[in-house]
């Protein structure tokens, strides 16, 4: 290669610092990430005492607040390290705690919050001491977030908040609610929403569980005259919707979990090497062989494109819709994987964890249930396709 030319490199960690960071993280996780903590997310979605303790140790070891200024508890480091962090957890099929605070609340507070708010929350997020829950979705506002009805009415130094949120997945264990509410009834709907940090245990908040097909608990959250001090308003009033979406491509990329499938696919392959189907080796079953091979090919391609998009992110390049395309590709890929795995495993694939006959500890069955939401939550595949159509492909908007 001539000087100045570079060969494409698909490794996430490429500089010596990044490789050192990855090694340090990997050592930490080998030591601290117990099976119990790893599985808290898929099993119950709550952070129990072990999960809380793990999060604090993650913070103490300097893996939270990457790239934030030191005066707010940040630990330095690059966006590449933030990417390595989330990908390393995904590779281990583990739940990286507090994504709402790390990826949404923290960065928005950093960009728009008051000095007081930064000092109050950022160091505690970076220390792994507080968990935030997301408070966007409402019964009338799913994909159409700007249709939200929750009202925050100014009353002296306070806002009085009333209304209902739904599918707020972390609320039963989170310390704070990252809440969007309407602060103006006359302005156009996108310019009438504000963001608040609300103590999740404040008087007037009721949290009712909703149990899902995937086994995760989520919540309906009711606000009844909840009093929130004006210092908990994030940035300017009525700018909340813009704060919510300004970094959405970035968030979608950081939340990409395609590498989770690597481990799953390896376990499925290992299972197939020894399992029998109708008395014959499953590894010789023509349709099963083809399904497995296609899964390998599709995962590789999705990871290649994802790596390119992550490169754009880490280099600060313009990202028009790559994050959304990665989300679309990944969510639909995981659903296909679940069905492919079920088809390969046949009747046994339907067995849930706990059955002594369940292959892969019932993971295929669980995955088929849990991936239903992936093409719905965080923007339905249909809405996301609309977004890519006009932002990425510059097609005219649907009037």
């Amino acid at each position, binding site marked *: *290669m*001539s000087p100045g*030319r*570079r*060969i*494409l*490199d*698909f*490794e*996430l*960690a*490429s*500089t*010596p610092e990044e490789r050192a960071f990855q090694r340090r993280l990997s050592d930490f996780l080998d030591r601290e990430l117990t099976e119990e903590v790893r599985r808290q997310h898929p099993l119950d979605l709550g952070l129990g005492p072990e999960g809380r303790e793990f999060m604090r140790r993650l913070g103490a070891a300097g893996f939270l607040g990457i790239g934030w200024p030191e005066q707010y508890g940040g630990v330095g480091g690059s966006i*590449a390290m933030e990417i390595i962090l989330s990908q390393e957890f995904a590779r281990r099929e583990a739940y990286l705690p507090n994504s709402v605070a790390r990826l949404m609340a923290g960065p928005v507070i950093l960009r728009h919050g008051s000095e007081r708010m930064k000092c109050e929350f950022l160091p505690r997020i970076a220390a792994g001491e507080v968990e935030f829950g997301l408070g966007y979705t409402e019964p009338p506002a799913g994909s159409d977030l700007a249709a939200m009805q929750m009202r925050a009415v100014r009353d002296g130094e306070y806002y009085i908040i009333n209304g209902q949120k739904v599918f707020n997945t972390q609320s039963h264990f989170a310390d704070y609610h990252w809440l969007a509410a309407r602060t103006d009834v006359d302005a156009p709907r996108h310019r009438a929403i504000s963001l608040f940090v609300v103590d999740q245990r404040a008087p007037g908040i009721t949290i009712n569980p909703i149990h899902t097909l995937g086994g995760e608990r989520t919540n309906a959250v009711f606000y009844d005259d909840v009093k929130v001090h004006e210092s908990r308003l994030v940035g300017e009033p009525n700018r909340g919707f813009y704060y919510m979406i300004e970094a959405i491509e970035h968030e979608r990329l950081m939340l990409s979990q395609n590498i989770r499938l690597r481990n799953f696919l390896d376990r499925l*392959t290992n299972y*197939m*090497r020894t399992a029998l189907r109708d008395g014959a080796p499953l*590894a*010789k079953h*023509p349709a099963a*062989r*083809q399904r*497995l*091979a*296609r899964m*390998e*090919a*599709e995962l*590789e*391609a*999705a990871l*290649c*494109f994802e*790596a*390119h998009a*992550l*490169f*754009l992110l*880490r280099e600060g*390049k313009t990202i028009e819709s*790559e994050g959304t*395309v990665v989300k*679309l*590709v990944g969510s639909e890929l995981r659903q296909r994987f679940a069905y492919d795995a079920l088809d390969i495993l046949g009747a046994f694939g339907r067995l849930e964890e706990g059955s002594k006959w369940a292959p892969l500890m019932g993971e295929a069955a669980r995955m088929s249930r849990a991936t239903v939401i992936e093409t719905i939550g965080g923007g339905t595949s*249909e809405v996301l*396709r*609309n977004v*890519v*159509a*006009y932002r*990425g*492909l*510059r*097609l*005219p*908007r*649907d*009037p």
Partner: protein
Amino acid sequence: MSSPIAACACRAIRDRSSQRVDVMYLQLDEEQTLIRQSAREFLAQAFPSERARAARLDPRGIDDALWRQMADLGWMGLVVPERYGGAGASFLDLAVLLEEIGHASMTGPFFSTAVTGALSILYAADEPQRRSLLPVLARGGLKLALALDTQRAGFDLSTVSVRATNSAGAPRLYGAALFVADAAAADILLCPAIREADGALALYRIAPDASGVSLSAMPTIGGAHHYAVELTNVETAAADTLGQSTETADGLQRALSEAAVAKCAEMVGGAQRVLDTAVAYAREREQFGRPIGSFQAIQHHCVNMLMDLECARWITYKAAAAIDRGALEPSLVAKAKICCNEAYRRIVRLGHQVMGGIGYCEEHEMPLYFRHARMAETAFGDVDDHLEVLATQLLGDKSPAVTEQAMKGAAS
């Protein structure tokens, strides 16, 4: 050599077994962007879709004037090392150029010469042969076709059935090779054959007009570029054997693997053109009083095309970069070809759907890409071939028990 491509190709002095550079880098660099832009502009002017339609039905594919221009641009020897008169460019550079070849729907002997032919000589011929053949090829003075006898169009060397008789020094060839791309345009046919003496694979060069060589057209969906090459007692001279037969199979396999990646790049370019065309049409074409691109059904088709395209493109680049690093795994070739085949098929189908009736007309460009997709998806292995390659790597052979029994039976 005043074009940007020639200029940058000349600057790019590199060997493909090069050291790794220590920074994550995942986008095309400036030289590749330049290759793309200048090739796009050149082909738009020199090879518009009217010419692509004519070339499809012309057994020679490309006329001499255009071939000369392409050679002057440095395209023929793009990945041929400089010591053999080539530009010594990276495989990714070639992939970018091939995307533009696919984008322009250029069929014909460019691929068989600059890719399959050049790589076969590079990896399977010996040093004096490389020194004599490759500089001529790089100058545009030699068109090649690989007469690999397989109904899988260049996927599997184990199906070669052409035989070389055991006459010391100058064997005679007999047998047939089907689906030989661009045989009628070629100055030299590269013909792998099994030596009767020892059963080894050897590579011979023969002239298409030599005594005993017969070409018959195999008209395909793609056009007039495929031939059955029938060999009846074809004489060869000692100098017509390329390379040492101990290295022929590995060298040809390497050439075919890299050619498969190159074909992926060509398909990505074709798919990009289909998406570009569909999106442009969807912005302009009005039905029910509004551009059809404002309908979500059409938007979603276009986004589905984009999703497929991006995945196909980046796995192809990964495979090209692996070649540049000297670390191309057979499984990555298989994965890339599976993804490109399936992506291109879906993209062309949706492209037709967006274009409506006009895209069904031969005078429109869509049929060129439909035809290209049908031919490219069988070249260097189809989806089922490559799925089996991957499955064998992951799970072992599909029927080792049967094979062992058969071998026992044969031994007894």
